[in-house]
């Protein structure tokens, strides 16, 4: 036990750094993915047929591809097409695209779950289409989308572990490095497991509070 605590103390900076990078990757991907998902979801419902088909192709391809493959593709394809990206940026690109596709589908479903009568009621009092979206449809749809949105956030934290494969120093890779030095395999993977659990419990608590607040 003393040896474990001593090793833990020595590894504290590495672990903290890993947690920060994991959270940075997940949070940035959630923010970018949410904006992307909102646009994609609205285009899937209201877009011109060409845009709708393009969005559908994007969503289906991304959702049908394992996240690990997306990450490897982003890492190897971006330099091949002349984009200068480091491993973290390439990983972020993959996670954001993954998140955007999932949220796009969630937003589409939520928008379509708002009864058509709501749009008609908005029209009948003279609201324009953007006003109907902003004040009538989206407030209702986004409430619907909140639980799956939180779920996607949790999925992203878990998917961020895959960035270790392309050499991003997030929590899992840091843990592997620590274990490589001290051979305390079980102990340090347990530490990483507990940290991931804590992060995800934090996100779920945040989500539940948000849900309670927006419920009419």
């Amino acid at each position: 036990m003393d040896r474990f605590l001593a090793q833990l103390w020595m590894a504290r900076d590495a672990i903290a750094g890993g947690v920060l990078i994991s959270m940075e990757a997940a949070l940035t991907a959630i923010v970018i993915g949410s904006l992307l998902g909102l646009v994609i979801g609205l285009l899937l419902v209201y877009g011109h047929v060409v845009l709708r088909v393009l969005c559908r192709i994007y969503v289906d391809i991304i959702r049908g591809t394992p996240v690990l493959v997306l990450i490897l593709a982003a890492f190897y394809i971006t330099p091949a097409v002349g984009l200068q990206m480091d491993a973290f940026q390439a990983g972020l690109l993959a996670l954001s695209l993954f998140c955007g596709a999932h949220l796009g589908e969630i937003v589409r479903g939520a928008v379509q779950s708002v009864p058509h009568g709501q749009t008609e009621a908005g029209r009948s009092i003279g609201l324009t289409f953007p006003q109907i979206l902003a004040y009538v449809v989206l407030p209702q749809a986004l409430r619907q989308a909140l639980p799956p949105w939180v779920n996607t956030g949790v999925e992203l934290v878990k998917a961020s572990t895959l960035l270790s494969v392309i050499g991003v120093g997030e929590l899992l890779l840091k843990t592997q490095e620590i274990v490589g030095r001290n051979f305390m395999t079980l102990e340090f993977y347990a530490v990483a497991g507990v940290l991931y659990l804590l992060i995800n419990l934090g996100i779920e608590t945040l989500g539940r509070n948000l849900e309670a607040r927006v419920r009419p």
Partner: protein
Amino acid sequence: MTEPLAGRPLLQIRGLHKHFKEIEVLKGVDLTVHEREVVSIIGSSGSGKTTLLRCVNLLEEFDGGEIVLDGESIGYRVRRGRRHRLPDRLLSRQRAMTGMVFQNFNLFPHLTALRNVMLGLTKVRRMQRDEARVLAQTWLGRVGLAQRMESYPSQLSGGQQQRVAIARALAMNPKLVLLDEVTSALDPELVQEVLATVKSLADEGATLLIVTHEMGFARQVSHRVVFMDKGQIAEQGAPAEIFERPASARLAEFLGSARR
């Protein structure tokens, strides 16, 4: 309420045609509604009466004919001999000239009764918040809901929800109010409170175009009753004439079945 009306024509529908796929729902409807007039449309389901109302509120597109509201042809413009649907912005402005009350209320469930009424006032009529609040409170008071302004639709009975919907439509100060079977989704004991509210609007001189299955109400509140059958106006006249001396066998048959 059958005194002759001298008001100017507010709504003129001329030769309105509409079909869904191959089914022709409106086969050339002509109807004029004068200012301060209350007109009820009766007829069996599928006769086209609700579609007619929805065309006037521009919720449906129509294929031929013209709707003129207060001198303005609505929904379409003709350019180089071809009809074009107006852009969203203009349609919105024209829709704001009419108020619509729906069979299923269609209140905004995420907003309180007060906010339901205020939304159009602040966003369409561009009123200041405080001014909009006062007007919304006045209208909710007039429909008897002064005590329920902070309630959400789910906390209100059907009759109360429909009265909020009436306040929401009327607060916009529309030239014409369209009421689409406003009591059809209500429990029987809640019908009267909504009908009483509509009657009070009629008594105050609002121009109403009503689609209804409540024959007693149509008779009591209307200046004129229009009977629609198979996408056309089959008969129209003062309520006493329509209900006492139906000219066509079709209307007599319809009234007979409605009474049962």
